[in-house]
């Protein structure tokens, strides 16, 4: 992988809820931090996220959920990417009760960003998750 290439990040709402304030802010601040952001927006399915990840050759997927369905939908996003042979890390944002965070991490989610995280934390978490994923598996695509 070309180290000079900016990080390409896909951000999406998965499921039905329309709370996109956080997602839009994250999209802008990742752009300001030099990432290339693909904003998929509302009501994305696991299939559409995987398809877009392939088409856009993204380094990381950020999914936002405020619908209480994170325990079902976040692992499904991870599984769908892995089933397509992608090692792309998945970061979850939104309303996630603290007790659910270890469950999501165990299901293969790279990190969970809850309400009130700072801009620096968002950017650092995304960079770290992307870097770890790159070091684990050599990416040859």
């Amino acid at each position: 992988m070309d180290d000079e290439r900016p990080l390409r990040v896909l951000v999406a709402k998965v499921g039905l809820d329309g709370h996109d304030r956080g997602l839009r802010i994250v999209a802008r601040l990742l752009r300001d931090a030099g990432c290339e952001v693909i904003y998929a927006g509302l009501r994305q399915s696991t299939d559409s996220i995987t398809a877009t990840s392939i088409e856009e050759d993204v380094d990381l997927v950020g999914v936002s959920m405020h619908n209480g369905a994170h325990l079902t939908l976040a692992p499904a996003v991870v599984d769908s990417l892995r089933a397509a042979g992608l090692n792309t890390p998945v970061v979850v944002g939104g309303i996630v009760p603290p007790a659910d965070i270890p469950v999501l991490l165990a299901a293969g989610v790279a990190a969970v960003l809850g309400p009130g995280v700072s801009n620096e934390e968002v950017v650092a978490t995304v960079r770290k998750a992307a870097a770890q994923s790159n070091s684990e598996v050599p990416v040859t695509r």
Partner: protein
Amino acid sequence: MAAHSEWQNAYDNSPQRAASFETMSGIPLQPVYGPDDAERPGQWPYTRGPYASMYRSRLWTMRQFAGFGTAEDTNLRFKELLRSGSDGLSTAFDMPTLLGRDSDDPLANGEVGRAGVAIDTLADMEVLFSDIDLGSVSTSMTINSPAAPIMAMYVSVADETGVDRARLSGTIQNDILKEYQAQKEFVFPPRPSVRLVTDVMRFAAAELPRWHPVSISGYHIREAGSTAAQELAFTLANGFAYVEAALAAGLSIDEFAPRLSFFFNAHMDFFEEIAKFRAARRIWARWLRDRYGATDGRSLQLRFHTQTAGVSLTAQQPEVNLVRVAIEALAGVLGGTQSLHTDSFDEALALPTEHAARLALRTQQVIAEETGVVHVADPLGGSWFVESLTDELEGQAEGIFAHLLEAGSGSMLDGTMACIENGWFIGEIADASYQFQSKLAQGEWIQVGVNGYAEGDDNPPPTLKIDPAVETRQLASLSAIKQSRDDDAVRRALRQISLHAAEPTTNLMPALIEAARCSVTVGESMRALESVFGTWYERSVA
């Protein structure tokens, strides 16, 4: 002064609560203060409140939003809320229901009964309100795209339980415009969606004299990140758009305007929020009289529900949210709200537990019973600061109205549509929300526990767990209903919906009520409408 004696007459003719209107130390209090020639509450242009006597006659309705799991689960929470002194019910539907998707729709996977109650058929609605007298309780239903089919179900429950439709009291949100701007729970394109809104308004005007068929909502606009002035202006502009749509549908202004109600956010900037509520009343009165020709006083009086700002709640040190909610609720009361929902302190973590929901209600009761702020109407009226802020917000809102009218060549309905279609509202809100986030990032605005005073965030409180079996139970009950209903009747009802949808002047409510009776699901009714109306997709702008 004539104005003063008019107000005095109105006040004297208003009922009074059994309470002593004096300070804790016994100083007697007047119902309102100001020089003799000052505007009084209940007087044009209603800056100081819609009613002459305000909370001396009747406190605001303490209306706590609740809903989760199956209809049985929510029914139990409703009965608990009524027992602990809540006097209105407020229904939260789950995401699939809000989007007009049945529990067995593949898109509903994982979301059934999660963020609200799942309603698929009339049977669910019957269970939701079982042992509750629809003729005496006031019910709010927070739903927009499928508002018409849900309203049809509610009316059907009343019909079945022998409650006269004319006795039904409550509100259905039915405010589709702010969905395209902020909350994003849309299904059909804006134009046919507004037709559904006016169908419910026409039905209510004819049959439900005590019902509020649309609650024009700024709450979600603010939650999406707007400023106070944007919340004020976008909301009232949406209100003007519905007025223009209803007039075009053949209603006369004083026939429906008295039943329009509003729903605002109470955020953390105390005086700005109070000024916003005061400005809203004054703007509405002026526009309804001067632009739309309303003459009935009730058409001019803006009445509103308030909810404290969910977005102001922090996941860090969540108990601190109790303090935030109390301050925001106080702003709503000082601003003269007619009903109030106080958020629970754990809502940045999960749906509220029963314990947290009770504390939220207790917060309202403390304000009502212990602080004395209910004795005097508009206690901040006449404050140079608050009056100036009220004028400033009104001025900013008028600037936004001018932009919308220009976009609509003089029509607020067309201007609102145009600015939905070109993404203007979304862009404005996204800019404001990003600017506020930058203030937080740079420490120009301190949020306690988040970017200041962050130590001591130790023990997260226990959060509400939704039983994962809810989805399975709901799916089983839906499947049983689908197997036992009369399939021919279902087909006929759905055909009728499509036919009526294709005739723009036919009111869809009778066909939707007939469908509800035949156990047609919310999703089936919505797909029948969608086959005629089409589907709306948001332009992907970040």
